[in-house]
């Protein structure tokens, strides 16, 4: 088969769709090895070890993310709730939500998640309660600064649970005229996070 032909996708045409088999360019990376072949290294274990070496920086990185969140909160206070300040606050909270557990602060994650939900699902951004925003940001900072690592701190767990509860009550009230939307945002996540090991 010529190289040109090998690079063409195989297309089967049907009444309302086409099924395309693209050339498999990743085949080059697949190695078939015998089951009893000696494993040179475990790529997952090696990646985890590499990540562990990076962990010395995580405290500083988390601090930087907290400063970013606090700065976004101050911008909201100074300029009011508008698309720019709301986006900055949401992105800062969203990044913390995604990274806190990796950085060793799993109890920060639910607080950041709750703040994201508050910003994203309040129908009118002007109605986002700033007092509740403050409480979320302060909670993120407090849990981080107390160096509450791991997931067993009772105070941090209670704080996260309380903030989530108040936020969900607010969202249920704010979206009471939009039952379909409310049902959507209360649906369980389709993609639960995966255990780290």
């Amino acid at each position, binding site marked *: 088969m010529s190289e040109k032909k090998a690079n063409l*996708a195989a297309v*089967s045409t*049907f*009444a*309302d*769709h*086409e*099924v*395309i*088999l*693209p050339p*498999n*360019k*990743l*085949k*080059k*990376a*697949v*190695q*078939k*090895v*015998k*089951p009893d*072949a000696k494993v040179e290294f475990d*790529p*997952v274990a*090696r*990646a*985890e070890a*590499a*990540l562990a070496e*990076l962990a010395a920086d995580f405290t500083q*990185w988390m601090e*930087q*993310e907290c400063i970013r969140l606090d700065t976004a909160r101050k911008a909201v206070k100074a300029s009011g709730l508008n698309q720019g300040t709301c986006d900055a606050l*949401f*992105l800062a909270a*969203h*990044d913390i*939500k*995604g*990274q*806190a*557990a*990796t950085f060793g602060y799993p109890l920060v*994650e639910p607080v950041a*998640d709750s703040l994201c939900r508050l910003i994203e699902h309040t129908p009118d951004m002007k109605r986002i309660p700033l007092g509740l925003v403050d409480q979320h940001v302060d909670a993120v900072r407090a849990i981080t600064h107390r160096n509450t690592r791991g997931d067993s701190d009772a105070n941090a767990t209670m704080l996260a649970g309380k903030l989530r509860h108040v936020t969900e009550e607010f969202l249920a009230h704010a979206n009471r005229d939009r039952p379909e939307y409310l049902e*959507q*945002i209360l*649906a*369980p*996540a*389709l*993609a*639960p*996070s*995966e*255990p*780290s*090991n």
Partner: protein
Amino acid sequence: MIRIDFNRLRFLVIDDNAHMRRILRTLLHGFGTREVYEAEDGAAGLEGFTHYSPDIVITDWAMPIFDGLELTQMIRQPGANTNPYVPIIMLTGHSEKKRVIAARDAGVTEFLAKPISAKGLYQRVLNVVANPRAFIRTKSYFGPDRRRSANPNYAGPERRKGGKADVIKQQPLLDKAKSPT
């Protein structure tokens, strides 16, 4: 048994957060990849995609300028670039049902919810390399086949027209490797 030679794969990582890019680069290097390119937003990501011709794209969702979803839609334009079939792994803090479905409908190949783990990332890469999916083009969709498997208990109407031959069985490399030689 199958093994992925990461050294032969070129990755493009698109995330506006420098810490997350560093984590992804560290994990990919740990797997054995040498070529990891980075971009900090969707626009730079599209430019990097054209310039570096990556084998696999890993993108965040929430980014300034244009986001990971819009980037995916731009890549999945047949004829608009050199490789509209490139596997796209969306790594995101969004895990809600509507988000996962939106990502799937934009043409994302794999979805990986944060927090990231070495195992989760490895499994997604293994899947796109060893189990490549056919692409489907309709009036409103172009991307990997959203039917990952045939459900023998499905009792609803057939939404794809064209008879029973509309699903082409493609033996995954993983199965091929498992079968005796």
